[in-house]
């Protein structure tokens, strides 16, 4: 690389030539070192170990924070440079051989394209904002450094997943994400709810990951390579039996189902809200995006099986509708929003299931930004009021203007309001599905309606109305929280412009007018219902029995937790207890009884030792004659 660079310098005749050549070579340098982007996060994580393990105490935990923020900045800058290079030169793939034995070769491959790099920049940017936010949010936490090393790890895994173009690397990094989710959710590990939340997050995702691993191993045996591009080629020529294709497809989508909190593996996201808020910002915006992004990469393989595609659409629909409804009955501020994450990812699943990855990407991008903003505003409220129960909040609007603005912008961006973010995702989805799948269009519209309703409901409960005891003295947040929040507010407002710059907006000539009207109408109706339904804080649980039953059904997430408990958990526990019992009493019991029998035999035989020689003689005679009888048996 250095040689190339010096050649460029030497061969260029005049300065502008030389300059462009240097630029090209440098761009190539940035591209070839793309693997550094995940490494930056990892370096940050490792470099903060001395503080997080408590080996350096004199300085306080702040240096670890600065190291990680710096590393994220570096990753952001590097990503930007690569983005520029890719924009000019086109996509590239970079591969290293990691492990090779017999016919089994594992590559670590990165694919650099505009979309990938855009997603990496999004992750780095949101991670940067979330880290600055965390500096304010967790300022008084004793293990600030530990939090930041986990964030570095988290960020590394996410950017790796996005850039990876080998299924093995993707799987590995998804597991890393699972691990870091476990550690981040379990950050405040002394609280009982956190402990169960961390456990459930890990195990739920692990179910999906194990199925995905089965798919990966089977695919590796069938196709011989795990690079996405090779797999895509393989899919074109492969002629699998329908059963095998279906099983493979289902195994492959199981991982993303767990990662994106889709039915039936969705409960962990709700519980994960026990973790610190800065991690929730990332989890609800970009982590789920990573899972969905993997699904988009897998989609050309999943098409082998129509059943798996249909499953995607069905799972997406169930989650989108179910989660939107469940969100309506939540009274925990963070949970009202986390269910809408599941719902939007359900829309993404529908888009992938109907083979419209473009729609999926659009929803992911716009959802990630607005959801991050919503979670920042929620974080500000929680830090200021020490409360996340919407029934105890109220009247914050005039007291916290920046936060209110952030929430409003985020909420407006979330619903399909022209021209803010999610409008475009909705529009694209409805346009494409309009003719073939009107029922899915209905789901899009209902999700929009319910989201608008829910966000309006929360807005009224939190920002309007009388001030409550906990909100009476609520000042606006300090700068470490306000800065990222306001930045993201402005950015959310600018998203349409950015999208236009990147040629992501469709031309107006193709607009389906009736679809547009339906979309806007659904949002307006949602806001209308949300603005007019009676919201009584004291009587948040309805007095009328049928309404209350419905409310409870939704509030407890259709009793999914109980469903888990009576099915999977009970099954595993019963099997475990059964095998333990079998082990203790049957296997070991048999062995011990053999030992016991021989001891007992010896013990009882010793009483035949009488000391009288005629007794011994008698025994010998009997024994010998029996032996003689036995040996001469055949002669008789």
């Amino acid at each position, binding site marked *: 690389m250095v040689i190339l660079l010096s050649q460029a310098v030497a061969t260029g005749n005049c300065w502008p030539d030389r300059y462009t050549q240097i630029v090209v070579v440098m761009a190539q340098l940035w591209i070839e070192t793309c693997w550094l982007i995940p490494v930056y996060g990892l370096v940050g994580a490792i470099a903060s170990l001395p503080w997080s393990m408590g080996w350096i105490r004199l300085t306080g935990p702040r240096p670890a924070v600065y190291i990680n923020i710096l590393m994220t900045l570096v990753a952001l800058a590097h990503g930007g440079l690569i983005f520029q290079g890719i924009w000019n030169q086109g996509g590239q793939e970079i591969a290293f051989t990691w492990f090779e034995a017999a016919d089994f070769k594992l590559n670590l491959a990165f694919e650099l394209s505009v979309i990938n790099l855009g997603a990496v920049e999004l992750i780095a940017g949101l991670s940067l904002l979330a880290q600055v936010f965390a500096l304010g949010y967790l300022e008084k936490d004793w293990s600030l450094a530990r939090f930041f090393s986990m964030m570095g790890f988290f960020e590394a895994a996410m950017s790796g997943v996005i850039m990876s173009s080998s299924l093995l690397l993707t799987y590995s990094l998804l597991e890393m994400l699972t691990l870091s989710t476990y550690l981040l959710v379990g950050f405040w590990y002394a609280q009982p709810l956190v402990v169960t939340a961390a456990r459930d997050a890990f195990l739920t995702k692990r179910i999906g990951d194990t199925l995905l691993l089965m798919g990966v*191993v089977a695919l590796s045996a069938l196709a011989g390579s795990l690079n996405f591009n090779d797999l895509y080629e393989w899919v074109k020529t492969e002629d699998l039996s329908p059963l095998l294709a279906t099983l493979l497809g289902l195994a492959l989508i199981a991982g993303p189902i767990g990662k994106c909190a889709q039915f039936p593996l969705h409960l962990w996201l709700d519980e994960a809200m026990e973790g610190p808020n800065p991690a929730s910002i990332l989890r609800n915006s970009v982590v789920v995006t990573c899972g969905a992004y993997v699904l988009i990469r897998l989609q050309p393989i999943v098409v082998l099986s129509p059943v798996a595609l249909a499953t995607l659409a069905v799972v997406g629909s169930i989650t989108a509708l179910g989660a939107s409804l469940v969100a309506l009955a939540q009274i925990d501020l963070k949970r009202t929003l986390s269910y809408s994450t599941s719902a939007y990812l359900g829309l993404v699943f529908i888009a992938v299931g109907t083979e419209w990855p473009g729609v999926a990407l659009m929803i992911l991008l716009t959802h990630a930004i607005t959801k991050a903003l919503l979670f920042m505003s929620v974080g500000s409220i929680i830090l200021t009021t020490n409360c996340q129960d919407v029934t105890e909040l109220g009247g914050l609007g005039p007291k916290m203007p920046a936060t209110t603005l952030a929430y409003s912008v985020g909420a407006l961006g979330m619903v399909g309001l022209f021209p803010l973010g999610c409008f475009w995702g909705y529009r694209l989805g409805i346009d494409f599905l309009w003719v073939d799948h009107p029922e899915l269009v209905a789901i899009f519209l209902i999700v929009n309606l319910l989201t608008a309703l829910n966000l309006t409901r929360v807005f009224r409960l939190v920002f309007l109305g009388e001030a409550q005891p906990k909100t009476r003295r609520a000042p606006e947040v300090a700068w470490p929280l306000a800065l990222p929040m306001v930045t993201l507010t402005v950015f959310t407002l600018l998203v349409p412009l950015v999208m236009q710059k990147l040629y992501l907006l469709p031309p107006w000539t193709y607009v389906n007018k009736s679809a547009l009207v339906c979309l806007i109408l659904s949002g307006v109706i949602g806001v209308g219902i949300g603005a007019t339904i009676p919201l009584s804080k004291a009587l948040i649980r309805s007095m009328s029995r049928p309404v209350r039953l419905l409310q409870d059904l939704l509030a407890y997430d259709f009793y999914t937790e109980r469903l888990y408990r009576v099915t999977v958990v009970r099954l595993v526990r019963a*099997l475990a207890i059964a095998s333990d019992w079998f082990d203790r009493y049957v296997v070991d019991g048999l062995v011990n009884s053999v030992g016991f029998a021989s001891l007992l035999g010896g013990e009882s035989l010793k009483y035949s030792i009488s000391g009288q020689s005629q007794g011994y003689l008698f025994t010998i005679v009997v024994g010998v004659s029996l032996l003689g009888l036995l040996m001469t048996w055949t002669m008789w």
Partner: protein
Amino acid sequence: MLSALIIIPLLGALLLGLWPGGWQGGRARQFAAIVQGVSLVWVVIVGCQFDIHVPGMQFVESFAWVEPLGLDYQLGVDGLALPLLFINSLLGLISVWASPARILRPRLYFALMLVISGAVAGAFVAQNLLLFFIFYELELIPLYLLIAIWGGTRRAYAATKFLIYTAVSGILILGSFLGVVWLGGGSSFNYDPTLTASIDLLPQLILLGALLVGFGIKIPLFPFHTWLPDAHVEASTPVSVLLAGVLLKLGTYGLVRFGLQLLPDAWEVLSPWLAGWAVVSVLYGSLAAIAQTDMKKMVAYSSIGHMGYILLAAAAATPLSVLGTVMQMVSHGLISGLLFLLVGLVYSKTGTRDMTVLRGLLNPERGLPVVGTLMILGVMASGGIPGMVGFVSELVVFRGSIVVFPVQTLLSMIGTALTAVYFLLLVNRVFFGRLAITLPTDVIQPDLILPPVSWAERWPSIVLAVVIVALGIQPSWLSRWSETASLTWRSPTVTVAQAVPDSLCEAFATPTCLP
């Protein structure tokens, strides 16, 4: 070259045991550590001179010993044994290092440890069936004493159980070896895979059956496993490390070397049953582990599950899966060694291993934060999280086996999910929550302060953790030794392996091929 690996520890043990003058514990430990260190260095030297491209035995040493019996002193090492020699020396050193200096009768204790190391190294390099058997039995006595003298409260029971089980295993193996040589018409007991070509299938099956039970006891596989949890629970921490990390590997090594390679025809016939057996062992071990409340017992049952993967890979007998057996042996040795060390530290600081009373040990000031962090790393490695050696070895095992036994492999993979379940339960119960060593009550307890863990106690675990991560990131450092050996030897099911997609498709076309 190889004799030194046997002689150094045995000579060290002799010196340590017989040197006049009363040695203190610390000095005896130092001496033993130096001896183990020297043999570790020696293994590294052997490794450096080892030619990884040669498929056969290297560094062969041979001279007649008891000729009428056919017992020759014949040593050699190939890619299968070399990694095992390395973990034998490494874990030998670690276990000496992790032993307390103030131990009862230190000279006997450390001498026995050295004897075990020497005997195990001998078994791995022995190229004569009788010689292997002698070393296999030689390791038994010191371990019996180590459990029976320095063990827990029920040590006599556990040690006797161990002794009886392993003695039975030894008899079966000896019988099988005799049968192989006598029926094969060999004049000596030297290891020779061509010896069995002339034996009919039925006698081969019987011989293999005896070998399987013999090594199945040692590995241990369901239903011959119950000695293992007892032995682990009663053994002291360093002995557990040796037992799990090194001695169980004698069983799996024997399975591959003497079962798969010596009796390939019978192996091919039995292999579907063996794969089914592996599934049962994996799932049974993992499920039983979930129900345990003693941390050490949980780790012990997890060993049973993880050793099942090796049987699966050996049953599949594709070149890749044989490589997988070696990798899984090493990775299991390192990971279970680490877990036993950490459980031992928890036990020595809190006085209990009961998961129903221990809580919140991750507490930063009063608890055991470093031990907790390492424990999370260890359980994640065991659960097969990428970036650590457990993942890549399991991946190779599964990838190598799925082409032959798809259904059994997929069922075994459930074991990795179950591993996550029980180890997560362990971490959640013991390390998360509020620090306490009582049953959960509402009564407010006074603040508990655990004695601090010194760096000297942490180092052995840190070293193992570093090795686990390093090999996980660079798995070729582990696989390169065994690659040639596992890829070139005659594989009975190699024809099946070439017809990869067909067998997979067939397996799914017919609903199940579980025996």
